[in-house]
């Protein structure tokens, strides 16, 4: 009897371990698959040329990815710039100042917001933001714009990632022990001093993780961006230029490039780039955090 229990114990343990390893391996398998399938184009063209050339003419065998990389950078950075301060202040308010009732309401609302399908955000962008940019914001700068711009996409993405960042940041802030707050308050610190000098400091690694998560999400977001970014294969020159971020490139063209040589491989390379950037971003964030923790 006892041995049967032991066998069960060992079986469940190894089964769960295998599953864990398998999900971890999936990342490597996907990266490897993408890399292998983009080998064709990597063998034909030097990688630097692929990354920096601005000419995207698949029909003529010209595959310059710079417009898409730049497009992704523009919309992602803009969305981070808009979303991060708002989210962090919002999380600080909910964690440190709001009453239990407000927190009890805000939590579920935020969860619902982050559960809204991205296509809905896309539609909101098209119906509300595109006309706003086209009819009001662009004319203010004296320029014509279709309304499908970096600005529009950045705002849509920011709205999408705010609930995500707030959610994670809030749980990070709540995990900071109350005895730390008490220690600070008891020497006569105000609430804001306590937040700024103690709570935020303690929470920095977690908050950075929240921000990285939000930015990764913005970087990889496809649907909402396709609908509002304009999708012109030129590197954006400013907030009012259209953009064509990497995910949009892949989603718009995959399945329609069968007859063009190298096109398939080029899109695989785009997907690989996307994945690589997100992974590098995560690793870099982790390294920085490690370093910061050592200092403290």
């Amino acid at each position: 009897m006892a041995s049967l229990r032991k066998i069960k114990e060992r079986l469940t343990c190894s089964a769960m371990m295998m599953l864990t390893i398998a999900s971890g391996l999936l990342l490597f398998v996907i990266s490897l698959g993408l890399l292998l399938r983009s080998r064709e184009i990597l063998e034909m063209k030097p990688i630097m040329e692929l990354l920096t050339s601005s000419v995207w003419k698949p029909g003529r065998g010209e595959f310059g990815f710079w417009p898409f990389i730049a497009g992704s950078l523009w919309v992602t950075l803009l969305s981070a710039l808009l979303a991060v301060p708002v989210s962090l202040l919002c999380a600080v308010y909910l964690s440190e100042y709001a009453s239990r009732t407000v927190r009890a309401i805000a939590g579920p609302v935020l969860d619902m917001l982050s559960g809204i399908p991205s296509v809905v955000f896309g539609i909101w962008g098209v119906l509300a933001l595109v006309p706003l940019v086209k009819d009001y914001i662009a004319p203010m700068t004296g320029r014509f714009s279709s309304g499908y711009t970096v600005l529009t996409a950045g705002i849509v993405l920011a709205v999408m990632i705010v609930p995500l960042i707030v959610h994670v940041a809030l749980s990070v802030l709540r995990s900071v022990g109350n005895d730390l707050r008490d220690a600070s308050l008891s020497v006569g610190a105000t609430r804001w001093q306590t937040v700024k000098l103690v709570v935020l400091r303690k929470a920095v690694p977690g908050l950075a993780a929240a921000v990285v998560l939000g930015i990764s999400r913005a970087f990889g977001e496809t649907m909402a961006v396709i609908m509002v970014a304009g999708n012109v294969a030129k590197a954006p020159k400013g907030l009012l230029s259209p953009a064509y971020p990497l995910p949009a490139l892949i989603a718009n063209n995959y399945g329609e490039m069968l007859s063009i040589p190298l096109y398939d491989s080029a899109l695989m390379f785009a997907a690989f780039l996307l994945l690589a950037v997100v992974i590098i971003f995560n690793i870099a964030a982790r390294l920085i955090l490690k370093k910061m923790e050592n200092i403290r």
Partner: protein
Amino acid sequence: MDNSLEISETPHLRVRGLNVYYNGHHALKNISLDIPDKKITAIIGPSGCGKSTLLRTFNRLIDTIEGVKVKGEVMIDGVNIYDPKVEVTAIRRKMGLLSQRPCPLPMSIFDNVAYGPRIHGERGRQNLRNIVESNLRHVGLWEEVQDRLHKPASELSIGQQQRLCLARGLAVEPEIILGDESTSALDPVSSKKVEERFLELKNEYTIILVTHILRQAKRLADYVVFLYMGELIEHGPAAELFANPKESLTREYLTGIIS
């Protein structure tokens, strides 16, 4: 039971008709007592009797708990700290709190001690250095940490951390030290060191300790306050109360019949 002035010194802290409610639960019931100046007062009683709650009313840390209502007066230097006009940060500054578990702030040893003075506007480097050194000496930590002042405070042992926290509290020059079972997370040697500090500090400060260790109260206290189920049962000079408790509840608690 008007034995509140049996101790001849003038009181430092006067409590009058203090009631505390937590979401409807009556946690402290009509407490009135005087805490003598420059003595160690021990608040004893079984867990859940309201000891820590009482302590937290003294520096208004109780305000941070949601759903709490406080009625009555706590007077320090003739000022009722629950007067709406009172600046709560100024009140808290008068009291150093030493909590149950050592709780170093997420910064260096130096910055921990300098935290309070900086909060209150001290910027001079040399001044801060002097404050840090003298307070670390005060708690007997200087020799142990002087060559690693800029290392994170979390690298200290638990016992050292607790003395660091004491130094942090002292650095804002409080009048009163509040200890909330401050040795309960420490090993015996570290506890002894902290207790020794208390005995030394009582020459300059009024010290109020919450403790559930009777022997500790006997070792340290000049004055004892016994709470039971949110009520003040008895208070008086330690020698008297321990030798000759007036109330049967006190006697039962001291002899271990209730706990």
